[in-house]
């Protein structure tokens, strides 16, 4: 019995903007369920009153001088990476 339903898989795939082929949804749901079961171990940890850690160096508010630093990379070089370009702009498909 799968812990995760097909519709939940479809929902997270939609959130992730990833098209999933219909024939792979079942196996994905099973793998997904066993991964969730596996990570469930953390629920045993006693974490009441424990602060969460999102970074390990303790650095905060790293400032730099408020001064323009020119990029060593030209916009032409950066645009060269885009699949479609028109008149110096990245071209996208119509939104609707």
């Amino acid at each position, binding site marked *: 019995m799968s812990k995760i339903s097909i519709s939940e898989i479809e929902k997270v795939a939609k959130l992730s903007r990833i098209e999933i082929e219909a024939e792979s949804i079942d196996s994905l749901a099973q793998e997904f369920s066993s991964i969730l079961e596996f*990570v469930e171990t953390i629920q045993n940890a006693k974490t009441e009153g424990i602060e969460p850690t999102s970074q390990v160096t303790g*650095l905060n508010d790293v400032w730099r001088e408020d001064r323009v630093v020119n990029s060593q990379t030209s916009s032409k*070089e950066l645009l060269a*990476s885009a699949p479609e370009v028109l008149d110096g702009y990245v071209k996208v498909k119509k939104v609707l």
Partner: protein
Amino acid sequence: MKDLNYLTIPKAHELLKSKKLTSEELVKFYINKIKKLNPKIKAVISLEDKSALIKAKEVDAKIASGVEIGILEGIPYTAKEMFMTKGVKTTAASKILENYEAPYSATAIEKLENAGAIMIAKVNQDEFAHGGSTENSAYHPTHNPWDLDRVPGGSSGGSAAAVAADFGIFSLGTDTGGSIRQPAAYCGVTGLKPSYGAVSRYGVISMASSFDCIGPIARSAEDANIVFEAINGIDAKDSTTVTYKYEKMPKSIDAIYYEVGNVVDSIKNQKIEDLKISDVKSIEDLGITEEALAAYYILVPSEISSNLERYDGIRYGNSSQDASNLSETYFKTRGEFFGPEVKRRNLIGAYALSAGYYDAYYKKAMQVRTLIKNRVNEILEKYDVILMPTTIEPAFKIGSKSDPIEMYKTDILTVFVNLAGVPSVSIPFGLDESTGMPMGLQIIGKQGDDNKILEIAKKIQDKTEYHEKVGEIKI
């Protein structure tokens, strides 16, 4: 002809400096070796022979003119596909970046270039570093030079295999949960995961930003240290870099050894000057490895799902040809060009971060991270270093771990180190009796103790010969 096989950095440097060898000869030696053996090992994604030979000639001209060269000048190396290298293909071993040429180089690559090291090839890995065997590469698996039927480990499997197969003197890898140390252990070479923030991540393709570390895979701790010295340091382009005060090692090092069965157990009987193992405990006593792995597989996919949003089929990389509007560009591009493990991790991450599950998974895992960090720091208050095996078993057969969780478990002894952000070096420490494959010993220190753990590793390597053993490549 001199024997150039398995040179270390100081040996190659000495040969170059004394004009017994030219950098061009050295580069050609590795290129020939790669051409001959890579069809079996498949560590290399792209060979950069032309640019390497040009740079080698520049170094040779410098030597000929009587200018003293630095330790890394003219030294050939390879880099994992995660590193952006200007004008060279940078694929992250993914189809989505199949034809991507980086417009600039990573800071670590630039630093090595400034030091005169010569990149000869980009090497294979698991796609976006998601994996522990290099089987998740979208191109081809890499074979372990010690036994071609086995994996080299991962995700920096191409790097470890390249060093073990003698395709260059060292390699650059990345380690998010063990991706430098585990393949180094599986391939019988030395791998350093530095303290988090010691080496700039700028220009390295992001996996999980609060975990990702960059480090060398090399033939010895001494070589790893030379590379680490060259690449570490604060970088204005990565605000998470830290200036650690690298202090000299105290006269005598006090270690705790965590036993895992009898893996690399012979460390207990070694007499290493200045290294005292004052406690031996079972790995269960450490008590955090399983929780660490579970927390890791919540936090890392969460960061992945956020970091990999950038592959949108618009700004760079491949784009689906079947899309008719913007939304379809996203869905179809990512559906078509991401591999199965990359999709799984994106989905798991999106799930863990989504409304209703955030507290139960993501927040809880961040709290567990605090507990793990505290536990590691508590042990490292009492002892200078932690010694333990890098993996519980040697490199496994290609295709033998098809279940994702079985694959995740290969990092059971390494991920807690990344959760805590401390440095760890894996050194070869003997062969597994039943398979004859190499096993690794991990030396873990406090944050900023990178040079100390490397110094201990060197002391061990000065007294032992494990790191000098090489796998005979059977072709």
